[in-house]
């Protein structure tokens, strides 16, 4: 349910004021809100937290002295006090002790247990008791009211200092554990005691530490890279990359190590391409950066880089992702079961954390290839405290346009630059600064060499983040970010003008995680965002608006969100995550709003002044997840999520090439779209945890689903909202995935069977029709073989049912014209899509060398299947066997359906280096 409120306003005739580079100055009440919030968050200044060193090892050389004297000696060395009944223990027995550099727990075991004494940690003491025959010693006594203390800290990569995200911290032999968050921080609260704690992360050697927990302990652990082998035996018994234990379903996560094995293009990792191989996620086909998740449209996906949304995640029509893969630390994908902190899009969230830069030493890496090259420089500014990373990529495609037989000249170019800075003020405060800019330009020059048609887009984003650790159990992250995406189309006829649409946002938010105890983790946050959208206006070369084209009003909105959720462990087998997200959306002037009647005719026009609110929507989003651990290798999970989308992309073309992109917020004529998703899944680890199997089924209901009337006109249309129709949609499916993440051979096999349907009054006669992205069968197999020395071979094969398209059911002649006759919408299918990618990478030297380099040969679409993305019915075959649009319109002729595809086989050879 959604609550909407309209604000009556007076009709005004004032023109929209000038925009400053497309962004409006923030109105006064807004400024106050933002400043107040800023003030509140910055109130929390750094605190100095008492931290203790880890238990040191002890050395004792004692010859023939009573145990009581030995205990006194231990107290002197380690400052640990003992408590015992001297009459019940043989403390006057003489013993000799020879211990060199042993951990305390082992020393106590050696001295005491051998003499029939067992020990237990209570408060700040070690209580000694006589070893009882029948009692089993418990390290973690539940019955005594012992104090609880918190072990917290960060996990880092030893060689670079990068935070390890999603790493595991657990008590050896117990099921108690925690996972590091998006900044490498974990917090675990336990009863006082001495614990063997294990720290592990896939691709790294596990570390074990003995922790004496008789007060709060803060530690920093560095894990060493596991170059030589990922131990197959030691696979994790807890969360992280194991689906069975993860508190999340409907998702997949990639760490640094697994990212390196994903399919790429041009020797580069491509996020979208990699995700295409994940069940439940489909791209349209070749050359497209659009992707669809569980029956949701392409604008229903949120991609975040360091918490800032990115609106176009690809360069060059989807062949290259928008940021250098060298710069990524981890990727977390959610197809459903969304944690309460995410919202704003209906179907997916891809949360990418970029690397922070090597904290220890200066490093440089690069990738030189035929289509694009990138270079990354990183290093410490203050060793172990502050670092930077600078990453840039540029396309080198101009030689390609001269190769094919284009009779006109084309120019493709793109570049991106990513700069980050981070600084640790102290143990409890870290700040991060990120800046990103990416640009694409695709132009076609005519013979006169004057800039002709062309499209281009650019993404600009920046974030400032501040981590603050309040206490060992309370972690805060405050983010201030902005993002702006411009899409432009060059129009030579318009006196070298251009049509441009843009979308931007400015956000201030804070997220808090409260690790209350091992059974409860509470997450909460507040977010305030200013959204701006220009649905597309024409600007002439001289900077003025075009007089021939109507000015489409810009949109301004504010979004306020608060969320709260708890992750709760109930008993040993059940866990529950429940929460609610409460977003409020408000639209503001200056703008002009058109009101339509039931026949979609304009009946009223109302202008709103700057800062005047005219439409408010509220849409509570409950989120629930419940899990049951069937055994220590299998689990069952179920979830329900409601999501709301206030900002949607208007695009009536299903072409994979992002055509005119227009983003419009909900308002008077557009209700917020919502989706409800239920999912249930079974997860199991097989063959001693070498393989993991997941089977997941989902059902989604879409409400107020955005659709378009037949022949909708979205270009230069001030009454654009009148072209929209709203209905409902639903999708369902089953996803199967078998994955292997360790050993030389890794990869996965996935199969999805899914359907997606739409029903919109006024479209297709109100009948149900399949969505264009309804692709019932989706099969993918991804394998990589790494011999850990020189070779890395990967193969990736994808098969999808063809996209749904509308084809004519017949033709008729009228006045000598052949006219197609259409029936139901999306009545037909494109040919099925399948493609094989292969790559082989040869490392010239072994891991561990300072300078590492390799050569990668990649073949995209190895058997060169020309997968069509579009079918036309307007061509005939001429005498030369070519397909052309008939120029002689008179006369009867046979129209032949012709398909267009993007690319056949695309090879690439890349040289990569790192030092």
């Amino acid at each position, binding site marked *: 349910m959604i609550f909407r409120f309209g604000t009556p306003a007076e009709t005004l005739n004032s023109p929209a004021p000038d925009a400053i580079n497309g962004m409006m100055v923030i109105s006064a009440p807004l400024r106050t809100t933002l400043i107040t919030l800023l003030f509140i968050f910055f109130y929390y200044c750094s605190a100095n937290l008492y931290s203790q060193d880890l238990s040191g090892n002890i050395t004792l050389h004692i010859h023939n002295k009573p145990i009581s004297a030995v205990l006194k000696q231990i107290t002197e060395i380690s400052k640990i*006090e*003992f*408590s015992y*009944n001297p009459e*019940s223990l043989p403390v006057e027995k003489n013993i000799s002790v020879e211990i060199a550099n042993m951990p305390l727990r082992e020393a106590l075991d050696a001295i005491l247990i051998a003499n029939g004494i067992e020990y237990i940690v209570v*408060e700040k*003491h070690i*209580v000694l*008791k006589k070893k009882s025959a029948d009692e089993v010693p418990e390290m973690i006594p539940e019955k*005594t009211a012992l104090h609880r203390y918190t072990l917290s800290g960060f996990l880092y990569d030893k060689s670079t200092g990068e935070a390890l995200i999603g790493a595991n911290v657990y008590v050896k032999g117990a099921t108690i554990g925690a996972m590091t968050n998006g900044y490498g921080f974990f917090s675990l609260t336990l009863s006082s005691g001495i614990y063997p704690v294990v720290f592990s992360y896939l691709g790294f050697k596990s570390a074990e530490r003995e922790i004496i927990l008789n007060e709060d302990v803060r530690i920093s652990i560095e894990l060493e890279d596991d170059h030589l082998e990922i131990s197959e035996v030691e696979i994790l018994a807890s969360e992280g990359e194991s689906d069975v234990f993860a508190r999340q379903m409907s998702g997949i996560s990639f760490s640094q190590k697994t990212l390196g094995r994903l399919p790429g293009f041009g020797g580069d990792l491509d996020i979208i391409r990699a995700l295409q191989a994940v069940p439940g996620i489909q791209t349209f086909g070749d050359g497209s950066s659009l992707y669809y998740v569980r029956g949701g449209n392409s604008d229903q996906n949120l991609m975040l880089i360091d918490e800032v949304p990115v609106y176009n995640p690809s360069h060059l029509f989807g062949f290259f992702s928008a940021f250098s893969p060298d710069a990524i630390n981890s990727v977390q994908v959610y197809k459903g079961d969304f944690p309460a902190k995410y919202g704003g899009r209906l179907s997916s969230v891809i949360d990418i954390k970029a690397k922070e830069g090597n904290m220890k030493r200066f490093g440089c890496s690069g990738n030189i290839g035929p289509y694009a090259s990138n270079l990354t420089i990183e290093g410490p500014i203050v060793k172990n405290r502050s670092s930077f990373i600078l990453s840039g990529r540029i396309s080198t495609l101009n030689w390609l346009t001269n190769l094919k037989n284009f009779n006109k000249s084309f120019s493709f170019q793109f570049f991106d630059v990513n700069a980050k800075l981070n600084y640790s003020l102290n143990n409890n405060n870290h700040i991060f600064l990120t800046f990103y800019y990416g640009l694409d330009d695709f132009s076609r020059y005519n013979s006169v060499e004057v800039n002709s048609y062309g499209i281009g887009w650019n993404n600009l984003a920046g974030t400032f983040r501040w981590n603050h650790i309040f206490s060992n159990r309370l972690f805060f992250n405050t983010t201030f970010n902005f993002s702006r995406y411009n899409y432009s189309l060059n129009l030579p006829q318009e006196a070298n003008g251009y049509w441009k649409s843009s979308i931007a946002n400015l956000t201030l938010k804070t997220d808090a995680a409260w690790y209350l105890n091992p059974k409860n983790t509470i997450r909460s946050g507040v977010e305030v965002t200013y959204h701006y959208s220009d649905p597309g206006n024409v600007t002439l070369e001289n900077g003025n608006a075009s007089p021939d084209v109507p000015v489409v009003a810009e949109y301004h909105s504010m979004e306020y969100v608060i969320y709260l959720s708890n992750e709760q462990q109930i008993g040993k087998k059940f866990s529950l995550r429940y929460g609610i997200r409460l977003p409020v959306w408000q639209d503001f002037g200056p703008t002009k709003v058109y009101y339509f009647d039931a026949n979609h005719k304009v009946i009223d026009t109302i202008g709103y002044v700057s800062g005047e609110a005219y439409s408010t929507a509220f849409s509570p989003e409950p989120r629930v997840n419940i899990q049951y651990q069937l055994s220590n290798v299998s689990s069952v999970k179920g979830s329900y999520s409601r999501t709301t989308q206030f900002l949607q992309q208007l695009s009536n073309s299903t072409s994979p090439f992002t055509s005119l992109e227009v983003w419009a917020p909900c308002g008077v004529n557009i209700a917020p779209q919502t989706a409800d998703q239920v999912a249930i899944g079974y997860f199991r680890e097989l063959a001693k945890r070498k393989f993991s199997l997941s089977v997941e089924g989902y059902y989604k209901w879409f409400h107020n689903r955005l659709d378009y009337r037949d022949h909708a006109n979205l270009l230069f249309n001030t009454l654009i909202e009148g072209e929209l129709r709203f209905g409902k949609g639903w999708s369902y499916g089953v996803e199967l995935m078998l994955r292997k993440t360790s050993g030389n051979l890794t990869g996965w096999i996935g199969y999805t069977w899914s359907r997606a349907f739409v029903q919109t009054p006024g479209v297709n006669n109100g009948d149900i029709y399949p969505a264009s992205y309804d692709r019932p069968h989706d099969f993918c197999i991804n394998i990589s073989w790494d011999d850990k020395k020189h070779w890395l071979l990967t193969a990736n094969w994808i098969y999808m049912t063809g996209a749904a398209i509308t084809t004519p059911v017949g033709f008729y002649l009228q006045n000598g014209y052949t006219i197609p006759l259409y029936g139901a919408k999306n009545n037909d299918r494109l040919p099925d899509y399948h493609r094989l990618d292969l790559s082989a990478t040869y490392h010239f030297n072994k891991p561990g060398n300072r300078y590492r380099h390799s050569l990668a040969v990649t073949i995209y679409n190895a058997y060169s299947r020309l997968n069509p993305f579009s079918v036309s019915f307007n061509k005939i075959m001429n005498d030369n066997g070519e397909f052309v649009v008939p120029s002689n319109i008179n006369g009867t002729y046979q129209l032949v359906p012709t398909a267009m595809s993007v690319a056949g086989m695309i090879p690439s050879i890349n040289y990569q280096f790192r030092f």
Partner: protein
Amino acid sequence: MYRSFSSADELKIAASGKISEFTLPDGTKVTLNNGATLTYPSKFTGGFRKISLNGEAWFEVAHDRAHPFVVNAGKTVIQVLGTSFSVNTKGYRNCREIILAAGKVKVYRDDKPDDPVFLSPGEKASVPADGQPIIKSVNDDENFLAWKTKHIIFSNTSMNEAAALLSKVYDVRIRFSDNRLSGCKITATFDKQSLESVLNVIKVTLDLQVRYAGRNIELSGAGCN
């Protein structure tokens, strides 16, 4: 702590409900245990710095050789020669007990000033209430200042003694539900811990149960063999 005027130039300080620290006009630091009262002049005049004490207090006397510091405790007089010491007017069998940590003190009955006892650090003077001679001994009570420092050392200590000491230090009443427990012995050192914390440790060490009823605490258990 409160101050009152008992005569024109005399001031009185008392610690009620908690331990109180105070600095006298000459710079001497006094820590009064709960229930103690100390009387002193607003300004020290004359050759001596005289104060009166009832109860238990710890003194850190400011150096002034020209003006010896004198404590009048009941009918016992303690003359101080720059030092740190403890005075308890309600000691064992109502003795006045004076324990010296540093410096030197002279203890005598106010009616027998020529019959003093000199104490060296680590020594204790017990002044019986009934007029018997002052007994000088070596202080064997490691915990004499535990009420102030909250540093408690139990070394082969019987639970009877331990309970008594804890009762004094934390101002509670600890009793045993069973006499078997009183004979249990314990070796443990506690430093600035809360009573609950100390009892938690003792509880696990001797397999006791602890029942709290306000300031009354009852210990029960199977006892020790």
